[in-house]
């Protein structure tokens, strides 16, 4: 069997993806795509990749399988997430989505194992280009545009990365992907590319724009990979870069407010995802062993509970046709299991003791505490209360409880229940047995989350926040659920930029007309120059007479002779 282990892990996914095309739609295909991640995971666990998988390409040394503890933990959770996502999508009778789901997961895992920047870049772009089809699969005009915006930003991140890599290679004559210092232009570009994918503040809107626009199953799959890949890349490349602490802190805070007023529950979850990424970025910025462990652990548990939340809201969306808080409510009557799973996800993300968020987030918090970042620490505690407010309370409360919307949907399909059940089980299991997750982390863990004082303080924070919620609810001070969108930074490129361009075009066209009139009356010959850049039938593209061509040649000859002889 050992020759099988020669393959890089993503290859299993790609082969599986191609094979899935030829399988008949239905049970067999769904079973197959669910098993592919499992097979890949088994192959990885039993495979021997200690020496990497190095290939000489041009004068570059590529490494397709750099396996160390950091990449291992991300690869394992990606395999698990891919498997769970495919179970959730078991009912699909589609060719494209299962194919894309495998390619996308495979590319993300490939990027995690990339030992050099060029391989990283290739997989980076593959994740971007494959994942957009999960958005387009929704098949509406709105999703097409959202997908295009997503694609443009993701590809832009790739282009920035490529330019950064080229400069990096020129500076260092190496493309090894390892820890780098911010300082040179190349490192800033690479940092920026990672930051776009990691949804740094002001670069974040692609996330809230695209995830709610994807298909029900697509969102679950999307939520796992792209941003966590960026977290991995930052942890690998920029661990201990101080500015990340402040970027991360901002990331934890501002999405809270947006999530609180957002009506679409999937968008609420997208904002909450952004907020959770902030915790991981802070961990990377602190850069101590404890904090990096926290980042890896938090990414691991985050993928699970965020997928669980997206799954439960997705099931609601499937059964009712909407995920707007204003249209939902009281669904616990007919979807009790989904409600329970959603509550488990909510408890995990809010970091209640015995749930997965509790044992991972506290690593980052104490990482910040140990390094005496008091302000950052206060911000993180604040953000923890914020997480509770939107993901912990708002999502389950408005979907399943609150006032009765009159909707009586059926319980979610069996495959979705199984997927949610498994994910929920993992969330609780990790919460109760943190040791298993801790043993996977990059550094040795000497941390026990279950001390009496830790449980007490966490419960105090959460219970009194819930108390505040109760009081405000009684006094009707909560923001009401209303249909609408809230402007975010994407307003700049979805509204401001187009209108500026409109105005500019109008000014330019007026200007052009004026200029043309002026030149027509003064020097008509110059008009051609103004037209020359504007496309068809301009001077550069129309059929020239031979005489003009010859004139052109003569001029060039004169120039050449001039340069040489003078």
């Amino acid at each position: 069997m050992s020759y099988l282990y020669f393959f890089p892990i993503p290859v299993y996914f790609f082969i599986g993806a191609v094979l899935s095309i030829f399988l008949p739609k239905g049970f067999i295909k769904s079973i197959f795509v669910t098993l592919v991640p499992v097979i890949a995971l088994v192959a990885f666990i039993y495979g021997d990749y200690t020496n990497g998988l190095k290939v000489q390409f041009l004068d570059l040394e590529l490494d397709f399988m750099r396996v160390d503890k950091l990449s291992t933990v991300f690869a394992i959770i990606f395999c698990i997430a891919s498997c769970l996502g495919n179970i959730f999508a078991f009912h699909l009778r589609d060719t494209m989505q299962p194919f894309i789901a495998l390619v996308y997961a495979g590319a993300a895992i490939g990027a995690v194992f990339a030992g050099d920047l060029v391989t990283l870049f290739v997989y980076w772009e593959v994740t971007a280009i494959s994942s957009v089809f999960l958005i387009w699969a929704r098949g509406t005009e709105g999703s097409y545009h959202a997908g295009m915006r997503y694609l443009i930003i993701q590809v832009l991140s790739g282009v920035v990365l490529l330019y950064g890599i080229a400069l990096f290679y020129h500076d260092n004559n190496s493309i090894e992907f390892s820890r780098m210092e911010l300082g040179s232009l190349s490192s800033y570009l690479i940092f920026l590319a990672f930051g776009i994918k990691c949804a740094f503040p002001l670069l974040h809107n692609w996330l809230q724009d695209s995830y709610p626009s994807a298909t029900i199953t697509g969102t679950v799959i999307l939520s796992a990979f792209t941003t966590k890949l960026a977290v991995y890349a930052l942890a690998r490349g920029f661990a201990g870069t101080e500015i990340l602490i402040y970027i991360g802190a901002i990331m934890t805070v501002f999405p809270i407010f947006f999530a609180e007023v957002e009506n679409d529950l999937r968008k609420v979850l997208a904002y909450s995802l952004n907020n959770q990424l902030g915790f991981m970025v802070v961990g990377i910025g602190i850069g101590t062993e404890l904090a990096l462990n926290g980042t890896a652990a938090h990414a691991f548990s985050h993928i699970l509970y965020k997928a669980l939340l997206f799954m439960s809201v997705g099931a609601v969306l499937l059964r009712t046709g909407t995920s707007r808080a204003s249209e939902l409510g009281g669904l616990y009557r007919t979807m009790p299991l989904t409600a329970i799973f959603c509550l488990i996800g909510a408890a995990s993300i809010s970091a209640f003791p015995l749930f997965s968020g509790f044992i991972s987030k506290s690593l980052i918090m104490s990482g910040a505490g140990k390094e005496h970042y008091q302000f950052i620490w206060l911000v993180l505690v604040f953000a923890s209360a914020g997480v509770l407010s939107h993901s912990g309370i708002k999502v389950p409360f408005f979907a399943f409880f609150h006032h009765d919307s009159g909707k009586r949907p059926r319980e979610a399909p069996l495959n979705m229940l199984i997927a949610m059940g498994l994910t929920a089980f993992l969330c609780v299991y990790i919460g109760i047995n943190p040791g298993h997750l801790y043993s996977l982390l990059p550094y040795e863990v000497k941390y026990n989350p279950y001390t009496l004082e830790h449980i007490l303080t966490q419960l105090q924070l959460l219970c009194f926040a819930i108390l505040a919620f109760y009081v405000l609810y009684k006094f009707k001070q909560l923001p009401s659920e209303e249909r609408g969108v809230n402007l975010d930074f994407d307003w700049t490129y979805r509204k401001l930029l187009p209108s500026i361009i409109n105005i500019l075009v109008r000014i330019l066209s007026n200007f052009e007309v004026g200029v043309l009139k002026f030149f027509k009356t003064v020097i008509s010959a110059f008009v051609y120059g103004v037209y020359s850049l504007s496309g068809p039938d301009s001077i550069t593209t129309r059929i020239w007479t031979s005489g003009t061509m010859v004139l052109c040649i003569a001029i060039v000859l004169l120039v050449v002779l001039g340069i040489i002889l003078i």
Partner: protein
Amino acid sequence: MQLNFFKYFEKPSRLKVVLLVFFLLCGVLFCADFLIERHVYFDVEAYSNFYSVYGFVMFSIIIFGSRVLRFFLMRKENYYDKKAVDSEEYSEGDIN
């Protein structure tokens, strides 16, 4: 219909019991803070019941802050585009 755990609490009297238990828990947590000695990283953390107060106050700030935010930023669903995803309507089962 399978057994529904939540339906048990539909009765207002039972719900009241749940709330009562919750208030009791809050009270216990509040008191416990004086009994258990906490190891702290920062001075501010050492104030008694810091977490309780911080949680309560911050949650309120979030709620009121977001209402201010909404006042400025809320627009109609088809603000960006008539056919934007935000304003799409579906009925049961016809979304994929």
